[in-house]
């Protein structure tokens, strides 16, 4: 398993892994390789470029059949107007609040569970671990409907009585947006994998010093798996920010709308004003792109660890 290798050097080891270079005097193959990869990369990036370019065109230019690919006048004002046309700032704030809460909750709760499942054997711990593993296999669509019903019939919330009747439960509340998706079995699983790798001497020494189990987890072991924390945090934030179906189902007021839902509504409500829509989409995409560029190696590590363990 690639565990040890993946630890640090994830931004792809600098040194070539094989060393075919010497056997190839003419770099024809290499040039072809660069060319192919450039084309592929271009195909991946062009839609993003097209999104930004469109967001800077005037509506007239967008509507005209024979306009060039690049805008004639760069309409940076589109962004200001888009923010006026739809409350994107509110949507973005909502998305941020939800993603940040998910991140904090998931990292706290899942790391604790992952630690316990990796390092402490208690009655049922193995069963619990396999339950989490099984939970990973349940498709979203098998859960989403009953989850909605639980939210809708949440007892004593939103005017509901103790049996969950009468009101609207958690529908259209922050609770519905934050609580159901807060902890993921995937994070528990990932944390467990990271904690498994730590040497037992560490915790034994701590135990001899008389530290309690919670302190060993918080003070001794967790600092050793900082990359796990960063990885889970980034992946959680990203998937929460990008989530669409759940917020679509449980909210209907504008003040609680998240950015992905806001965009989808903007598309139909205003007869698709492409310059605004692309400006909004750029605004929704940018934070994730920046986050990805900064934390790239942790994203890579997260996906790769999931794949290799």
């Amino acid at each position, binding site marked *: *398993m690639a565990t040890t*290798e993946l630890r640090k050097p994830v931004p792809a080891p600098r040194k*070539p892994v*094989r060393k075919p270079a010497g056997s190839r005097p003419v770099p024809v193959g290499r040039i072809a*390789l*660069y060319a192919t990869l450039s084309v592929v990369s271009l*195909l991946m990036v*062009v*839609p*993003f470029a097209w999104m930004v370019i*469109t967001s800077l065109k005037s509506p007239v230019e967008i*509507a*005209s059949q024979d306009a060039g*690919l690049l805008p004639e006048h760069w309409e940076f004002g589109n962004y200001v107007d888009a923010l006026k046309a739809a409350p994107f700032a509110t949507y973005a704030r909502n998305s941020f609040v939800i993603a940040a809460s998910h991140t904090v909750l998931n990292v706290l709760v899942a790391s*604790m569970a992952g630690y*316990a499942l*990796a390092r*402490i*054997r*208690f009655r049922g*711990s193995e069963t*619990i671990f396999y*339950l*989490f593993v099984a*939970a*990973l*296999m*349940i*498709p979203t*669509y*098998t859960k*989403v409907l*009953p989850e909605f019903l*639980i939210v809708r019939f949440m007892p004593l919330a939103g005017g509901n009585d103790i049996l969950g009747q009468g009101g609207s439960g958690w529908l259209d509340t922050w609770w519905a947006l934050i*609580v159901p998706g807060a902890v993921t*079995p995937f994070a528990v699983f990932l944390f467990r*994998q990271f904690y*498994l*790798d*730590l040497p037992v001497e560490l915790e034994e020494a701590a135990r001899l010093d008389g530290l309690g*189990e*919670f302190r060993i*987890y918080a003070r001794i072991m967790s600092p050793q798996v900082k990359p796990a924390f960063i990885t889970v945090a980034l992946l959680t934030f990203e998937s929460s*920010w*990008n989530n*669409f179906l759940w917020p679509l*189902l449980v909210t209907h007021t504008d003040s609680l709308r998240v950015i*992905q839902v806001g*965009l*989808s509504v903007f*598309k139909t409500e205003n007869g698709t004003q492409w310059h605004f829509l*692309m400006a909004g989409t750029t605004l929704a*995409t940018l934070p994730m792109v920046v986050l*990805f*560029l900064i934390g790239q190696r942790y994203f*890579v590590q997260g*996906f790769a660890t999931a*794949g*290799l*363990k």
Partner: protein
Amino acid sequence: MGATTVVKARPARPPSPPEAPAARRTGRVRSGPGSRRRRAGMLMVAPALLHASLWIGLPVMVSVALAFTKYDVLTAPEFVGLANFRDMLDDAVFRKSIVNTLLYTFFTVPFGMALGLLVALALHTGLKARGVFRTAVFLPQVTATVAIALVWLWIYNPGNGLLNTLLSFLGIDGPAWLSSTTWALPSVILVGIWQGIGMKMLIYLAALQSLPKELYEAASVDGASRVRQFFSITLPLLKPATFFVLITSMISAFQSFDQIYILTDGGPANSTTMMTYEIYKSAFREFRVGYASAQSLVLFVLLMGFTLVNKRIMGGSRGHN
């Protein structure tokens, strides 16, 4: 991505060298202070377990139960036995959605995997700019599907979208991609392949980096060509990664929803509707919650079935790592 982490979870038990001793020794503290330790362990798992019970365990049970009822949220569920499943057999649109889901999966997954593997192999050769290429290919993976679908909606725009603009330079009059019954599904599939390559590439790349170099050195000494090495060494060794990519990609392909919602709404004439979209429609537009639960159960069973078949064919993911 969850699912096959599962499959990978298992090798952790007979763990690989570095983790083996540690893993074996943990948790073996005998009674005495151990009981406090065990209690702490239970306490630490409790919040996550509670959350999973309420938001995964309970929903799954409710889903199974509701599949055998007629339920519109307003009145109490009424037991109807297998009626929902019989209705599904008569439901031409649902049948269409199954076919579309299978077509979508069949085209996005294997093609995406082949492309992902090719890009991974190219990036594995130790190019200087590999980081830039990798970032570019992976970018769609971190972007919201909604955002991606909106951008493609605009690219596919029949009048002055990017695609038809480029085609017009070549003198080709492009079709109205998403509103043509011929082109809508292929258009949706193209977006699926495009978005999914990054993930597949990344897992393959990580797997490639963990392959033992000695084998290749030995093979080179024996005079095996690069192509031969690929088919006799690389591909067999990549089997666990292939299995993982296959399963995770299939699960996410089966559950595609956001792009359908944005790009086509299942149309034109149901030519792009998917199982997930039908579940959504039954539940939240027609309020046939029992029927939707039955549909989601079919989705689950199909996915499980495919996973097991794949496991059979591929011999699971054990073995090589």
